[in-house]
């Protein structure tokens, strides 16, 4: 392996707090006459655990690591083939070979976090007992701070694979979540299933996962696989709560419910967060329905009057739509929150609130459409009126369709018109005529 790649590999092995690819070749901050002591990591930059790698050097190291990794992988496969059935033998793998595999694969992953074979090689080392899973979890966290790394499904899976190795399976079934179909068996987590359920993860571990997801979503907005991972963590937490209602897990659950609300309020165009909040509410309702004390009914109260520590997603969405009606995602959040939930308990609990909000939203949307200049207490700036009307019209059409008042079949033109939003209505036109069609 080249000296450059080796040095880079060793820096990556420190699992930096963050990694960033920097423009150019690093010459801007590396004065030629700088003594070695002032930057022992040159040509790379390591400041308080934050690693900076000039792109040109990263690419050079990558090209050097391709043949190095190819050789390492062959060596690794030879080791894997002769691993005794009784389990891995540390004596088997030479320290040199381990270093080669780790350094070359880490350089490849730095530049190309989607390089699945590089990640697999590291898993191979783990199965041989030549790499520590907790350490590797930190390395995965480092890669997830890269802009390109944060979005890679293989890295999120890597975390789950590592967590499954670190924490033992304490139960074999994923608790009953409000599923999309009643004929789903309770047991999800068969051997090899990619989930976190039944691992006995404590609140600290889960909080760490939530924090890493949140950071990844800051680095890469709308991060699909980060949100998917977050749901798996929430599902694992909900499952754990069925068996153990100790304060640690309950606190973690409530914190997550609060955290997502706060995130949404700071990211009003983040539909990924909003649909996650709806899924989370489903999980929460499932817990309530199964009799968990989280939303315990105090003596003397009926089901309808459960004192809620926080507003439901319906109310949350409704508050936000009224405050920021020009944001399409918020109207979708409202639609999501208004959809009938799957558990009968949820339907009983939520229907009064949902009806009130649905009527309020319908009235608001109609007001937006009937008077183009209405700005409802300053929530709509002059340039946004057309946009708000478009959202209002789409919402009303959706509502009509949900209520069975709008037929779509044989009316492809109407569908296209609904989706096109109609733009500014011409003078004298009934605005968005399909809205009143029955």
């Amino acid at each position, binding site marked *: 392996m080249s000296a450059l790649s080796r040095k880079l590999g060793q820096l990556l092995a420190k699992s930096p707090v963050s990694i960033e690819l920097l423009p150019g070749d690093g010459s801007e901050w590396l004065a030629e006459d700088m003594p070695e002591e002032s930057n022992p990591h040159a040509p790379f930059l390591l400041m308080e655990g934050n690693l900076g790698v000039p792109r040109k050097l990263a690419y050079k190291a990558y090209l050097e690591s391709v043949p190095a990794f190819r050789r390492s992988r062959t060596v690794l496969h030879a080791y894997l083939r002769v691993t005794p059935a009784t389990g891995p033998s540390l004596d088997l793998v030479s320290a040199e070979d381990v270093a080669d595999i780790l350094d070359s694969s880490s350089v490849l992953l730095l530049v190309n976090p*989607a390089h699945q074979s590089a990640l*697999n090689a590291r898993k191979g080392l783990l199965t041989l007992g030549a790499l520590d899973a907790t350490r590797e979890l930190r390395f995965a966290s480092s890669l997830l701070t890269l802009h390109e790394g944060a979005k890679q*499904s293989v890295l999120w*899976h890597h975390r789950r694979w590592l967590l499954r190795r670190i924490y033992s399976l304490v139960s074999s079934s994923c608790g009953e979540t409000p599923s999309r179909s009643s004929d789903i068996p309770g*047991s999800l987590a068969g051997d090899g299933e990619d989930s976190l359920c039944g691992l006995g993860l404590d609140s600290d571990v889960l909080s760490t996962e939530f924090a890493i997801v949140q950071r990844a979503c800051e680095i890469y907005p709308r991060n699909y696989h980060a*949100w998917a991972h977050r749901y798996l963590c929430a599902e694992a937490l909900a499952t754990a709560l069925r068996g153990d209602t100790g304060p640690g897990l309950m606190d973690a659950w409530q914190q997550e419910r609060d955290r997502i609300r706060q995130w949404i309020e700071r990211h009003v165009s983040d539909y990924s967060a909003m649909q996650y909040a709806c899924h989370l509410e489903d999980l929460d309702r499932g817990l309530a329905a199964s009799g968990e004390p989280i939303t315990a009914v105090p003596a003397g109260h009926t089901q309808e009057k459960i004192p809620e520590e926080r507003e439901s997603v319906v109310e949350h969405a409704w508050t936000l739509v009224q405050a920021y009606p020009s944001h399409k995602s918020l109207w979708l959040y409202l639609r999501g929150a208004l959809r009938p939930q799957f558990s009968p308990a949820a339907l009983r609990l939520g229907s009064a609130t949902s009806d009130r909000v649905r009527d309020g939203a319908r009235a608001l949307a109609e007001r937006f459409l009937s008077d183009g200049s209405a700005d409802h207490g300053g929530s709509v700036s002059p340039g946004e009126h057309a946009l708000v009307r478009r959202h209002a019209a789409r919402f009303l059409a959706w509502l009509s369709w949900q209520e069975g008042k709008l037929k779509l079949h044989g009316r492809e033109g109407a569908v*296209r018109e*609904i989706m*096109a939003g109609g733009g500014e209505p011409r003078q004298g036109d009934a605005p968005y005529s399909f809205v009143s069609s029955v």
Partner: protein
Amino acid sequence: MGLTLDIPLHVKYIQSLGENKDDLVYHLTAHLRMNAIYWGLTALCVMKQKDALNRDEMIEFVMSCWDDEAGAFGAHPDHDAHLLSTLSAIQVLTMQDALERVDIPRVVKYILSLQQSSGVFAGDAYGEVDTRFLCCAVLALSLLGRLHELDVEKTVGYIRRCRNFDGGFGAREGAESHAAQVFVCVAALAVLDRLDEIDQDSLGWWLAERQLPNGGLNGRPEKLEDVCYSFWVLSAMSILNKIPWINAKKLTAFILSAQDLEHGGIADRPGDQPDVFHTNFGVAGLSLLGYPGLDDLDPVYCMPASLIESKGLRKGWTALPRRELA
């Protein structure tokens, strides 16, 4: 605007892709090479220029990616076997009429071994699950003539659980609705003759909402338009017989505007760098939209329609009628 599809230019673009093997980009995309070959070949087939790439070289490359230990294909020599590359390999060999090169029993064994107890498929032995891999398994088994070995109820049961409250489908249960994930779920259900599992109006609505004022389609709410969604969304709509729910004219114009008319190829959106992925899905989208001069494409397999039909695998989808060349 009056733009047309510059077929000769895009063919030259695809031909040029394998040329610079010393390029950084070539190495950075090695982990996708098998897929890239499938995208390139499919685009050529749709543009009726299949012979623009050498058949024998292509077949030999595909076979060089065979992982004999796993019994499946990797994306590149010295890359691990995976369902994604295995499907692409099968698709390429099918289009090149060279399926006899495949050890079918071994590949089928590999594919079936990846199904989990929940019905979803892992992508490889390390276990990442995703409805994409479920679709790869279903399409691959179908092309190999071994679909009857699949536990259909179990497979369909998992897709059902991935249906979200907004009508769309995600990568797994609880995951956000995403047009590409919608496609893989819908395509798999089409192959399994289980489109009845879908609330077609809800899904149609969600898909129709992908169209933006500029005519392009996005993959999720409030995301940017992207040419590849011209395929993921459009093919799902074609399978649901709902292409008229979107504005075809505007979408056609959008795809054409994303061409790189200097160097060839199609990009994700106008002004960006083209790549073979978007070139394929742009052309595929145009085919489904009835663009003149193109060959018919089967939206379920994203392969030439005539080929899929000859294998007896055609399902009840509808594309827009092919317009006449001017």
